[in-house]
Structures are given as C-alpha cells and as structure tokens.
C-alpha cells in the first residue's frame, strides 16, 4: 500500500506540459483501447494519465517510454486530453530532472545530437560533403528554396537515396534551390518528444540563426518530422519561414505541369500515412494525388488508412530503442500491405522507411514487397 505523496517538481512539469487538459481526463480508457501497443503487448496510457494527475508516476517503469506520439488516441479522446504531450512531460521529468533512467540507446542518440548535431553521431562536415556529392549549390541569399533533408537522408545509405531522388526531381523541374551543410543541425523534433527539451531548444536556436543568416524564406523538407517541428514548434521560438513537405511540393509541381513522366510504372502501390504528415498535418490527399498521377501505377488502400492509419512505431524516440520481435507495429503494417496484395509500400517519412526496412529484413516476408519513398517512385517514372 502506497501513501499518496506526490513528487512535486514532477507534478509541476507535467501540469505545465499537459496543461488544463490533463485534469480533464475522466478515465474512460478509450486511449488504451485505441493504442496500437495493445495489439502486441499491453500498455495503459489511461493509467499513466491518472498517475500523472495524482503525481504518482513510476518513473522507473518502461511504460513511460512506450508512447510513440502517433496521436490516434488524442484524436478520439472525449475530453480533448493531449495524451502524447503528457507522455512527453513524463520523459522530460526523467531526462531533465533525473527522476528515472533514460534507456541507453536513447541516451546515445541524445549525446550524439547534442554533440555533433545529428543522432547518428556522424561528423558535421559530412553534411557539406553530401551537398557537394549531390551537386547542389550552397544556399545563398536570393536562392528561392532551401532543401533540408532529414539527418537519415544525409548519413544513412538507404535514406540517402530519397534525398538524391528529391534533388534530381527538383533539378529536372528547373527549381531554384540550394542546401546548407555543416551550418545546420538535426531539426530536434524527436529529441523533444523523447524528453530532452534542452537539446531541442539548442537545436532550434542554432537552426533559426543559421536560416536567418543565410536568408532562408522557404524550406522544402523530405521528413514529416522536420515539417511538424518547423511549422508547429519553431514559430514559438521565433522561426519565421514557409515550410512545405516534398509531397506537397510534388503536387504543386504537378498542378503547374512541371512534372513530366516518360515511363510507366506497372505497380500496385499502397501508401502508408505517416502520423506527422497525416494526423498531425492533415495531408492525406497530396501524396495520393502524386502517386495516382504516375502512369501505370495502381493505388490500393490498406485496411487502416488516412485518419485511422496504423503508425510504423518509430516516432518520439522509439526509433532508437529496441522493440522486441513480435511487438513491432511495422510488422503489422507490412501484413496489411500484403493483405491488399500491394507490391510496393510507398512512404514519405525517413523513420517509416527505416522501420519498414528493418522489418522487411526478416525472411518471413520474402520479397513480395518493395519499399519506396514517393520521391523515388516519381523519379523512376520521369
């Protein structure tokens, strides 16, 4: 039997972050029932919320690290509780106040990000090298668009292909764009969700001043996470620039007749809505329009799509943590793609891509399914 003795400092941070809405939770359990974790193991966000209300969270418990911020529950909660913000607050209490233990894998990514500006721990200069390798000009005042890829599209060999595709498309479409190298860092989105507010804010400051210095007004991104934080979070810190995700940009180019397809892609494609592009930003139509415009391509929908799409399981720092075999949402999602007999799983997010990539390594799936970013499919057909 425990005596109610709330951890005051923690309670305060939680209240600040979860805000008024935390108090509103009436313990209906809808969030738990909606949460995909319960398809593979058990996780009760409802209970964590109640513990947070009372200031009695068990910070040692690994439940605190479960939520991937997929936003499924938040969109359904009858009282408007932003469950994922509360989960983020709980992690902040661990990471920033030291109330519990940050998992090793996550700590490493945090250390890398704060040290060298990317979670992979790669040298900053490699950013500049990659821009050169791509043959893209350095962004200078007067350049119309800054192309800002995700760190995984700069350093990871698989992710790199997406950046290359995006660059080739923009070149072919005659877009005036440039890139920045070592002066910019990781956008920090996942750092914040994983609980490291201080690393996040440092990244925000350094990126905002790098952008300002270079005279950036419009940014094209190929990660929905960069998109989310640039549009929704950077403005609080003074970030003032237009941001569009590459699928939006593609659909714009398409409308303006600047995308010319020369090849047919005779493929059955299913599109996986990433949480940040879908539930967070409401961009459901643009990626589908772009895919459907590709000659020969047949688009099929998985059972759970658009607002109801199942998350890949990789946001909010979960990406860096090991998820046991049998508990991976990406496996469930691949099964859904195979269920509708797709031969390509199309994505528009680097985390989704790498998560699915990981899952597909397992021999059980054979080679029925190809994994492609929308940019790669468009490039292929041009």
């Amino acid at each position, binding site marked *: 039997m425990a005596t109610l003795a709330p951890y005051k400092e923690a309670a305060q941070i939680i209240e600040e972050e979860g805000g008024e809405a935390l108090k509103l939770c009436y*313990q209906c*359990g809808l969030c738990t*029932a*909606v949460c995909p974790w319960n398809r593979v193991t058990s996780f*009760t966000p*409802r*209970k964590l919320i109640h513990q947070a209300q009372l200031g009695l969270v068990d910070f040692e418990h690994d439940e605190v690290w479960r939520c991937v911020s997929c936003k499924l529950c938040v969109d*359904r909660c009858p009282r408007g509780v932003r469950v994922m913000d509360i989960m983020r607050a709980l992690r902040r209490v661990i990471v920033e106040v030291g109330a519990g233990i940050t998992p090793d894998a996550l700590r490493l990514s945090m250390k890398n990000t704060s040290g060298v500006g990317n979670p992979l721990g790669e040298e900053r200069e490699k950013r500049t090298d990659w821009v050169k390798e791509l043959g893209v000009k350095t962004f200078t005042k007067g350049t119309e668009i800054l192309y800002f890829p995700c760190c995984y599209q700069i350093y990871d060999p698989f992710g790199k292909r997406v950046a290359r595709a995006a660059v080739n498309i923009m070149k072919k479409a005659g877009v005036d764009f440039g890139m920045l190298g070592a002066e910019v860092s990781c956008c920090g989105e996942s750092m914040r969700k994983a609980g490291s507010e201080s690393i996040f804010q440092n990244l925000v400051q350094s990126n905002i001043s790098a952008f300002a210095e270079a005279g950036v007004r419009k940014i094209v991104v190929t990660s929905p996470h960069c998109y989310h934080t640039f549009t929704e979070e950077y403005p609080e810190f003074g970030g003032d620039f237009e941001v569009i995700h590459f699928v939006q940009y593609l659909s714009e180019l398409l409308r303006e007749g600047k995308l010319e397809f020369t090849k047919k892609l005779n493929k059955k494609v299913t599109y996986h809505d990433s949480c940040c592009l879908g539930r967070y930003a409401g961009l459901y139509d643009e990626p589908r329009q772009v895919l459907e415009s590709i000659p020969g391509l047949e688009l099929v929908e998985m059972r759970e799509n658009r607002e109801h799409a199942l998350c890949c399981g990789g946001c909010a720092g979960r990406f860096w943590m090991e998820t046991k075999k049998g508990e991976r949402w990406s496996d469930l999602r691949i099964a859904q793609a195979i269920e509708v007999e797709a031969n390509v799983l199309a994505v528009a997010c680097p985390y989704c891509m790498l998560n699915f990539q990981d899952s597909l390594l397992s021999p059980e799936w054979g080679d029925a399914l190809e994994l492609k970013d929308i940019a790669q499919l468009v490039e292929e057909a041009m």
Partner: protein
Amino acid sequence: MEDKPRIGVYVCHCGTNISATVDIDTVTSYARSLDSVVVAKDYRFMCSDPGQDLIKQDIRELGLNRVVVASCSPLMHEATFRRVCEEAGLNRYLFQMANIREHCSWVTENGKEATEKAKALINAAVRRVFYQEALEIPEIPVNPNTLIVGGGIAGIQAALEIANSGNKVYLVEREPSIGGHMIQLDKTFPTLDCSACIMTPKMSDVGSHPDIELMSYSEVEEVSGYVGNFKVRVRKKARYVDEKKCTSCGVCQEKCPWKAPSEFDAGIGERKAIYIPFPQAVPNIPVIDTETCVYFKTGKCRACEKFCEAKAIDFEQKDQYIELEVGNIIVATGYDVFDPSPIIQYGYGRYDNVITGIEFERMCNATGPTGGNIVLKGGSAPESIAIIHCVGSRDEHYHAYCSRVCCMYALKFAHLIKEKTDAEVYQMYIDMRCFGKAYEEFYQRIAEEGVKFVRGKVSEVTDQAINEEEKGKLILVVEDTLLGSVIRVPVDIVILATAIEARSDAEQVARLFSISRSADGFFLERHPKLDPVATMTDGIQVVGCCQGPKDIPDTVAQASAGAARVLAMISKGKVELEGITAVVDEEQCSGCKTCISLCPFNAISFDEEKKVSRINEALCKGCGTCVAACPSEAITQRHFTTEQIMAELEGVLV
C-alpha cells in the same frame, strides 16, 4: 423636479463578504458627506427583514425620496429593494444599487483599493439617483388562452393542467399524432410501466377535452405581440383526409400499395403512403405522405379513395392558415436522438446488428415490427448483447453534456433482454449515473439479474475475428479500466445508447419565439436554478427536453411548473410592463425610420400623418438599440437619460 432630492444610503456588510475587505465605516461616513445625502447607515444584512425595515422607516420618518443600497449585484437583490421602496410609498425607479461585492470585495484582497472603489461606486449611484424620476408602470390585461407548441409528454401534461382549470389551450403538434418520444418507448424506468399504458389515457384526454383545441400536423409560422397579448399564425398542413368525415376505419392504409420506413418504428418497420402512425394515435386520422404516394408523382392510383366508404379522402385539400390570439405560450418541442453514423468506429449503418436505443425500444414493443421479439436481423435469437453508453454524450467531438437518461434506459434494456431472451448482457459504461428517486435501487435490481458491467469507453465495434469464438460476431474493443487491460467482447447485437440532442430546427424555433439557446443548443431558461421554466421573453415558458435532456418525471414536473406559471398569470388577469422604455421626441424626429428596422421587438411604428416614429410602450423592452442608433438624437431612454448617465460617470471618475 418636484421636491429637492433627499437621499438615503445603505451600506451592507453581507456577513463578512463585503466587510472583510471593504472598510464599512469609512465608506458609510463618506456617503454621509455627499451632496443631498440625508442619512447613511450600514447593516450586517440589508436584505434581511430588519435591514429592509431600516430603509422603510427612514423613508417614512426622514422623508427620503431617493434610496441607494450599496451591496451585491442588482441581479441578486434589485427587485427586493425596489419592492422595499414601493412598500414605503416610493416609486421603484427612485432606487439605485451600487455593487460593492462582485465589483469590489470579491475581486481583490486589497482592502484599501476595494474601499476606494466602493466609495467611487456609491458616489456614482448617489449622483445618478439624484436625477432619477418616478416612472409609470403600465398594466395590461392578459388574454386567458394559451398556446402550447409540441405534443410530447411535456406539452400534453401542460395542456391538461391548464385546460382542467377551465382555460382554453391550443396545442400545436407538427406530426400527425401527439405522443412524442414517450409513446415510442416500450417500458419506462424505473418502474417498468408500459409506456403506452400510462400515456394513452392522457393522449385521449387531450383529444376529447372541451377546452383543448388540438391542431395536429400543424406548425407555428409567425408570432407577434407580447406577454398577455400574442398573435400567432398556424399552418395546418393538408392531410388529404377530411377529418370530419373520416371514421378511422383504417381501410385506406390496408389497401394502399406503397410503403415507406415508419417514423414511429424508428425506421425498423414500414408504413404505407397513407397511414395512421400507430394504433393509439390521437387524432386517429390518417395522413398522406406525398413523397411516397404515387398519385402525387404520376397522377395515377387513388386506391385509398376507392375503398374509403366515408368519402373522406380529399386530394384537393390545401394547407390552411389559422390566426390565434393567446396570452401565454409554452414551448415543448422536445429533442432529437443523436445520429451515431459519424462515429464510424461503431459501425452504425455498416453492421446490421448495431442499433440505436430508440430502435431497440420499437423492437421490444409487442406492436413493433418484430412483434416484441429481440432478434438479430434475419430473425435468429441473440446469445449476447452489449450496450454502449454515452454515444454522442460526454464527448467533446459531439456533445460535451451528459444526456441524463442513457444509463437508466440502458439498465432498462438489460432487464428487457433478460426477461425476453437467454442472452448475456454487457453494459459498457464510463460512470453509472442513477441519481433519481428509486434509480439506484433499480440499478441494484438489474445488477441482481446478472448483467455484466465493463467500465470503459468502447473504441471500436468490428467484425474482424481473431479466433474461433469471435467468428460471425460483432467484437467490441474496450479497456476494462477496472482490470486495466484491453478486452475483446464478442456479441450478436450492439445497442448504442445515443445522446439526446436539441432539435435540428431549434435555431429557427428560437428565432420564431424570440428565445435564446444555451451553448449546448437547448433553449435557455431564465435562471438555471431559480427559474428553470421561464425564458428571457415574458410570457414564454420552455418545458421538457427542449430545455435540456431529462427523464419523464422531470419533464412532467417542469411541464406542470410551466402550466402553474401560466395559470398564475391568467388568474391575476393583468401584467405589469417595464417602466423603462424609449420615447421619441416628435419635434426632433426626422422620420428617417432607422429605428424601425433595428428594433428587435417590432415595437416601433411610423405615424404616416405626422411622419414620425412612434414607440409602443407595451412592446418596448427598453433595450436602447434605437436610442443609440437615432441620427437625430430624438429618442430618449427613460431611466437612462443622458443626464443620469453623465452624472453616474462623473461619480466614478472624480
């Protein structure tokens, strides 16, 4: 000004509500120093009998002709102190109130500032009251007839209460029969009376009452006038059946070959194109639904006409307009049932065996489409049934409020299922709300019957089975929050306990009767606690579910209260009108008519001869719209003259 103003100021401590923050002595002696103030006193509770006597005594003995009370909000006690003045022979408009509680002591802990502000407010009130004048309080006779809109249990109850006292009631019901939702119910909680058995005697009383003129299949089109003297225009929709000739034999509906879903059976049964909605309908006269009737589409058929021996079918019938004059109006238009199709996770409309509460009521009823058998689509018996609570209620995506009857009718359903089938029953609830008389006992009784309670909000209803037991079932996914784990519950029928919501046309109805709505869409009562039947428009009451979700006992109680209000007014025979009205200075009026189009109460007319606007004092509510709008500054608001307002402003500013 007749006499030199002699002002009395009375400062209230309100227990310690005011005196704990405001320095009463300072304020009172300050008041005493003000110009024209003859006396200033303080007291613990000015509103108490001794407090009131203090004022009355001073008015009489010191010859006061103006009174200021510095206490709480005028909303609270202005009426009290106005009455005190009148009882001592002083016109109520020679009184002014200074709010030193809500505006001073309750909004700060800084005693010094609160005291200063109290002084300023008292100064303002004193300066203002100096210029206030006695106003006449007009009285008008009350027309003893009453209009009741809506013939559900609320309208029926109110109609009978009023008509039984020998006063005339016009009951206007939009549908072909009165009865509303209650007549659709099978049994009623908590006593499990058969709904029709307790309802139909009242319905037939209404139908045959000499003092009730029932206007079914009719709608109110226009309302004008004011309390005591409303004029109402009613449209009696064409039934295409002559009410006088029809013998209610029903042969027409037997012979009619065309069918449509029955509204009365909540769409789960059918009716004909010419139909009497249900056997006990009042009036028991059919109506032709021109959408379904093939004659109205193609010009051929008229089968009903051929078989009607009474020659009552009349395809030429037209809508009729009827003008009524009434003194009071009771609005009893009830509620709509929430349509659960937007909650796609619950599969209503997608799965045959996901039904709403009202559909289940009809399924349970012996006169309903299944003859009272609780069955799956196709007719087989269920092995298990789940009832999902709070569908559309307590959910900010739909309605944030609690619908107040769903927990109870869900329990009722559990009982009916147990009584009629061998099925397992699951209640998927968030909180059980069984607050009424004998309700908790009812909950206990149903629990004893072996119902399973799962505490949690269902996230989805699916037919995707993951094991043998789930095959062919509807599976509910829910966290049983008491177990702390997600469970899957396979059942055959899912009943959605859907919310009660404001009528889809509530906005138009509100506009028609000049009444307001609260944020939840229901009609707004004058005061949520102390006056839950009146509206801000005098002479118009709201009763039953149109004012907010409630059960039958509360509906009937509120309807009776509404009737009592009306009867009180009828027996008094006259109403007092507000003395604060606007007046047009005919010399100044340029005849531009700006005021006429702006007046929300249609109180201004144009004198074509003199070419000036004229305000009907009985209609004017003293809102001041015209006063502010008049480009010639020709309109003055009594009790809010420029002199009075300027004096008040000076009082706060100096």
